[in-house]
């Protein structure tokens, strides 16, 4: 392409871009089926992301939390944490409201609390 042809291509490309931006801003030109496909694609992608992030968190927790805590049931973890709160009422321990936490977060909270106490003693 010579210089003039390159210039013309830039114009040709840019006006196509402007027309496409205009259509997408107006939200027109999709069939119901295509719109549904776009929503489905986004939802499925987000589901995959959430699954991946859960897996990442689980892997991180396995590295961070001692095995004896990992095998404990939720009730046992909650009971142990409450005992720690009672024994160390002034200690700064995040998440004293245990009902809000997932099982994984609860185990991480117990690991953090025990680590903190071990450092203090």
């Amino acid at each position, binding site marked *: 392409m010579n210089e003039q042809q390159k210039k013309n291509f830039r114009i040709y490309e840019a*006006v196509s871009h402007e027309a496409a931006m205009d259509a997408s801003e107006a939200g027109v030109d999709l069939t119901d089926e295509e719109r549904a496909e776009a929503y489905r694609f986004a*939802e499925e992608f987000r589901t995959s*992301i959430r699954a991946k992030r859960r897996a990442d968190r689980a892997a991180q927790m396995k590295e961070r939390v001692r095995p004896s805590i990992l095998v404990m049931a939720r009730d046992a973890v909650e009971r142990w944490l409450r005992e720690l709160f009672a024994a160390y009422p002034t200690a700064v321990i995040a998440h004293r409201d245990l009902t809000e936490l997932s099982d994984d977060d609860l185990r991480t909270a117990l690991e953090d609390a025990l680590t903190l106490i071990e450092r203090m003693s």
Partner: protein
Amino acid sequence: MHESNTPQQLGRTATTVHDPAWENAFEVQLTGEMTASVMIYAKKRAEWIQRTTKRHDTFLARELYQDAVTDTWLGDVTWDPAKVPLELHLKRTIRSRSAARVEHLMQFPEDRVRNLKLDMETRMSDAMEVGQATDLTSYVDDVVARLYELASDDTEVVQILDCFASDQIERRDIMRVTGLDRLAYHNARRRLVRLVEQLPNELRERAIRAMA
């Protein structure tokens, strides 16, 4: 062409690690509405490619928007959430890829002939294909010449076209160069888009008349 209705495997690039804030921004911004908007953009760009190359591909729009999303997630294209919204990033990715595709076919028309040969719906004689391939740049020249002709009474639209020619494509740059304020730019851009929407039909009709 491989057809895919579902998101591709997210773990393809095992080494790509985003921080949780990046992943959170990606997940939050990847809404159905945003994806639909990106799909419209991809559809228009796919139509543009097909109009230019005369190659029909049913799945091109889908390929463009799904690849942009997947490649961003995998880190094959870089997205900085602090600098640009995901929607604009995806449209820019699609823009760059579709422009590269057309530009490549203009520079290497023999590739276009090969593509045409692979496309059952557009099989033609070799002589016709070669003729059309080499005409691609002149087709673009015709379109641009006609655009200037149609916009000849509209100084502001002509100014915008001139900016495009010198690779000034961002609104801020165009406003700075032309001296147009935001409203004037917005209105001129709308007039340009209306002009462009009518252009292909006009050129097509002219070609049909010429062949008749």
